[in-house]
């Protein structure tokens, strides 16, 4: 009898222990554990559904993963990418502006009912403020920009929003365009030097640490800028420095306040190769910037490759890529005219 009792008690203990462990692990499987780009661990009880942010490239990842305004309840700068967002969101103007850059109205944030804030590393001081008002915060974009950081931010946010499959699909598209660019440029015989100017001034240039350098290199060019250090920001130089670099090609953002004609007609620029050969181009697009660390950079890669090697990669091929991307992400397409691509 005694032996039977001992067995029964032992069996009960083991059964209860197994039950407790399985219940705990069921709870644990529901939680989402993330490590953001500055090494912070964030635990979400469930995928986030309402996201806020003020940095356009960072917030763009959430827009792309939602195919529009699905996850977005609060925006920062509403003018950058306005043409795109107005086209893919039902009521872009109705989305609340929670602040600009580093200045955020946290009462407005609370009023949106947001459960997640996504910010770039340069705004990491806001982490404490968001957490104090009860929001989870993911620092999704590091200061140093590269294709890996875009993959990282899409993967991170994909997990946070329960949209990992979609994130993988979009990353796959970008990787595909990078691979395509590499194949095309391997056939090219020369490398042109490219100068990427900033939007605020024709005398601001993109240093090594910016995504523009990676764009230029993957498209088979060389960044004309040298001797300039800086992370994530365009740097002001003088015209003599640009003459010294003497780029073969000049790209400037489509949202810049100056145009190609301003440079082509300025006598101070007249001896630069790019100006002499009229190779000054607005980097697309007029719908959203393709030169920022966002998913649309994949299209920037395609255009940059075409611009430097038009004989190896035609305009029709770019437009096919553009249609594929916008169809995949938003279920719609844009014409070359709308995008500002000739």
């Amino acid at each position, binding site marked *: 009898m005694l032996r039977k009792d001992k067995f029964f008690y032992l069996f009960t203990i083991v059964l209860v222990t197994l039950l407790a462990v399985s219940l705990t692990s069921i709870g644990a499987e529901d939680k989402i554990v993330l490590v953001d780009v500055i090494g912070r661990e964030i635990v979400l009880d469930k995928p986030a559904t309402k996201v806020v942010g003020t940095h356009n490239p960072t917030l763009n990842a959430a827009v792309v993963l939602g195919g529009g305004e699905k996850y977005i309840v609060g925006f920062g700068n509403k003018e950058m990418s306005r043409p795109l967002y107005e086209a893919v969101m039902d009521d872009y103007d109705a989305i609340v502006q929670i602040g600009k850059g580093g200045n955020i109205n946290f009462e407005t944030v609370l009023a949106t009912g947001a459960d997640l804030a996504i910010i770039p590393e340069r705004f990491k001081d806001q982490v404490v403020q968001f957490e104090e008002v009860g929001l989870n915060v993911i620092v999704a974009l590091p200061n140093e920009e590269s294709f890996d950081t875009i993959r990282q931010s899409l993967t991170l946010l994909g997990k946070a929003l329960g949209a990992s499959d979609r994130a993988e699909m979009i990353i796959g598209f970008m990787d595909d365009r990078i691979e395509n660019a590499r194949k095309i440029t391997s056939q090219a015989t020369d490398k042109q030097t490219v100068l990427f100017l*900033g939007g605020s001034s024709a005398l601001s240039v993109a240093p090594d640490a910016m995504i523009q350098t990676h764009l230029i290199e993957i498209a088979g060019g060389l960044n004309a800028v040298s001797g300039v250090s*800086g992370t994530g920001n365009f740097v002001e*130089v003088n015209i*003599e420095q640009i*003459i010294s670099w003497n780029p073969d090609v000049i790209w400037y953002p489509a*949202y810049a306040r100056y145009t190609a004609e301003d440079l082509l007609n300025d006598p101070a620029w007249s001896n630069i190769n790019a100006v002499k050969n009229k190779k000054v181009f607005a980097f697309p697009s007029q719908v959203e910037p393709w030169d920022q660390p966002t998913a649309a950079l994949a299209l920037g890669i395609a255009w940059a490759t075409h611009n430097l090697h038009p004989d190896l990669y035609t305009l029709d091929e770019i437009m096919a890529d553009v249609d594929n991307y916008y169809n995949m992400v938003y279920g719609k397409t844009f014409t070359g005219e709308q995008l500002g691509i000739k």
Partner: protein
Amino acid sequence: MDNTKFRRLFTILIVLLIITFFISLSIGRYSNDPLDVLNTLFSRAGWKEGSNPIMDNIVFYVRMPRIIVSMLVGAMLSLSGAVYQGVFKNPLISPDLLGVSSGASVGAALAIMLGASLAQRQITAFLGGLLAVSITAFIPKLFKNRNNMMLVLSGIIVSGFFCSLLSIMKFVAEEQTELASIVFWQMGSMAKVLGKEIVAITPVFIICTTVLLLLSWRINILSFGDLEAKSLGMNITQIRGIIIVCASLLTASSVSISGTIGWIGLVIPHLGRLAIGTDNTKVVPITVVMGALFMLVIDTLARTVSTAEIPLSILTGFVGAPLFAYLLYKQKTLVE
């Protein structure tokens, strides 16, 4: 004896300015070889054949306009600082006393946000500066109190108001284009100077400098005090008004071209007084040349020391603040 010392100093400064001009013309990010510049100059003069078109472009379209404008701006800011300090009998006064810099900053920011061209930006900055000064001059009339202190206080009020306006504009501005432009403009730079700026500010410089040189002995009389000046038969209101208008025009023109540049209008007049004494008939011309020389050196450093363009206010602050401390030390009896 004083006149001899003045003539000697003035001559030395002019010679230094000419030498610095040629040194500055010879150095830059493209080439630091003076022979390249000499060959270019000789080719232009027809004394030599076979010019290098790139060096020609750099010397005549890039460096020379910038060098000339930096000398003019330095001279204008220093001169307006000197006359303000004389008229208001206060050695701590600088050209932005009456709100010119703040008004010009608002004008420039407005132009940037409206997507205006560089030339339009310079015009709106100039008009903004003049608007600020006009409001500053109007407030004492409104309160029927025209003494110097009221004018200075009005300047503080107007500067404060325009600074707030500028802050609103910065808050509303688009971060990646407009805000970056406004902030860089505020720090002062000659990087965007082209030849037409010389045409824009030279008439203002010539006319206002001539008027102020001619009135410099009256600034001496104003420094004795209002009663003494009146007893000597001077129309204080008229003379002070003309001097302030000229100084404001000089400041507004400079700021509209280069953005706000600190310290030069405060420090250079003191340096002038340390060198030549307090007689404004000598301080004014000495200050003009010293200001031109100082700004030329600063701008040359700004465009050559590193690949990135260094804002002028950073350099004038680094040099001007310790220099001002030294001047205060040298003039410590005056301070006491």
